[in-house]
C-alpha cells in the first residue's frame, strides 16, 4: 500500500515524463502570445504548475501537447482579463483589427524571398500586433501544424471559426509586416 506522498511523487514523475518533453512547444506558444520576454517564461512556468494540479484530469494516451496549450490559453485569457480590469488596453476582440484590415489586397511577388528579409524579431513583433486569439490560432496552425479540429478544441471555438480566424490572421500578419518592408525599402511587397 502506498501513502499519499508516494502517490503524489508517482504523479509528479509521470507528469515530468509525459508533459515536460513539451516544454519547448509551450514556451514557443508563450512567446507567440507575449513575445520574447520574462512574461513568456512566467506564463510557461505557470502553465506547468497548473497542469500538474490538473494532471488527474488528463487522459493518458491523448494529446498532451494540445492539453498544455489549452491550459496556457486559459491562463493567458485570465491574465488579459486581469490586465483589462486593471485598466491596461489589451485587445481582446479580434474584430477590432479585422475591420481595420479592409484595404484592397495586393499579392507579394516572390513572397518566399521577400519574407527572408525580415528578421525573426520583426516577424514576432508583427505577430504580436494581431488580436490574441488570431495569433494563437495562427501559431497553432502554421507553426505547430495542428489540425483545425485540434485548434478548435484548444481555443474553444468551432472549426469554421478556426478557418476564418486563420485566414484573417494571415492577412493581418502580412499587413503588419508592411511598415517593415517599407522601412527596409524592399521591392516586391507592392505591384
Amino acid at each position: 500500500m502506498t501513502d499519499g506522498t508516494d502517490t503524489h511523487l508517482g504523479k509528479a514523475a509521470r507528469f515530468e515524463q509525459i508533459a515536460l518533453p513539451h516544454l519547448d512547444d509551450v514556451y514557443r506558444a508563450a512567446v507567440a502570445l507575449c513575445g520574447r520576454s520574462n512574461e513568456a517564461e512566467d506564463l510557461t512556468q505557470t502553465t506547468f504548475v497548473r497542469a500538474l494540479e490538473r494532471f488527474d484530469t488528463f487522459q493518458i494516451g491523448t494529446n498532451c501537447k494540445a492539453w498544455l496549450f489549452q491550459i496556457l490559453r486559459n491562463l493567458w485569457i485570465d491574465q488579459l482579463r486581469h490586465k483589462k480590469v486593471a485598466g491596461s488596453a489589451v485587445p481582446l476582440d479580434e474584430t477590432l483589427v479585422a475591420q481595420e484590415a479592409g484595404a484592397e489586397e495586393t499579392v507579394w511577388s516572390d513572397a518566399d524571398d521577400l519574407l527572408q528579409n525580415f528578421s525573426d524579431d520583426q516577424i514576432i513583433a508583427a505577430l504580436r500586433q494581431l488580436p490574441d486569439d488570431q495569433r494563437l490560432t495562427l501559431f497553432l496552425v502554421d507553426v505547430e501544424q495542428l489540425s483545425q479540429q485540434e485548434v478548435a478544441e484548444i481555443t474553444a471555438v468551432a472549426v469554421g471559426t478556426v478557418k476564418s480566424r486563420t485566414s484573417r490572421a494571415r492577412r493581418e500578419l502580412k499587413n503588419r509586416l508592411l511598415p517593415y518592408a517599407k522601412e527596409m525599402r524592399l521591392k516586391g511587397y507592392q505591384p
Partner: protein
Amino acid sequence: MSHLTEEQFEAILQGETPVPEHLEACPQCQALLAEKRALAERLRQTFTSIRAGSDLADRIRANLSAASANTGKTKSRPRTLVLAAHRRLWSGLAAAAAIWAIAIPVSLYLNTSSQARAAQTELVEIHKQNVASLGELFLHEDPNELASYLESKTGHTPTMLCPKSGLTMCGCSTRQFRGRTVGSYVVEGSDGPISVVVIPDAPKSLGMRRERGGQLVEQPVWRSHCGGCNVASVRIGDRCYYAVGQVAQERLDGVLTDLLTACQCCSK
C-alpha cells in the same frame, strides 16, 4: 471567373482537399496561395530556433518537485505555490529579487553566448562553402551585374568592392544564415580568399567585440575568431558586412576599407 475563397485556400494549405481545377488556370490564385504558403513557412522558421532556456527548465522542475512534495501533505499547497510565484514576480521580495537578478542575466548571457557562437559558425561555414565552390559562383566582370544578381536573390543591393581595389572578384552566391537567404561574394587577395557576407544582423548579436578600426578603417570594427577564420565587420547603411577568411585581421580591414570607400563613391 470566380476565384478561390479564403476557405478553399485554407483547405488547400491544410492538405484537406484536392486542388481545385481553377487554381491551375489562375495565376492570381496561384500567387496568393504561394504567398500564404510563404508566410506560413516563414512563421514556422521563426519559431523553430526558439527553445526554452535551461534556467527555465530548472525552475519548472524545482516548482514541480516542491508542488508534488507539498501536495502530498495538504491538497491546497499547489495553489499556494502559484500564488507564491506571483508574489515573487510582482511584489519584489528581496530574496527572490536577488535570485532573479543573478539568474536572468546569467541565463540571458548563456543563451546569447551559444546563439552568438552558432551564428559565427554559420558565417564561417558560408565562407567554407564559398571556397569549396569557387568555380560555381556567379561571376561577371561588371560589379553592378553582381549586385543586381544578389538583389534579385535577396531583395537587397549590396555594396560591391571597387574594381580598383586590387582584389580579384571570384563571384557571388546566396547562402543560408539563421534560416534566411543572404548574399555573399568572394574576393581573392594575396593571402587567400575572403568572403564578404551581407546581413542585417548586428555584430553585437553575434558576440563579436568592438574595436577601433586603426589606420585602415576609420569607423569602429567588430572582430572575432571562429573555426580557424578571422571575422571582421562594419555597418554600411542598414546592413552589416562581414569579411571572413583564413587571413590576418589586417587583410580583412583592407577589404572593409575598400568597401567603405566604394560606399562613399556611390553616395557622391
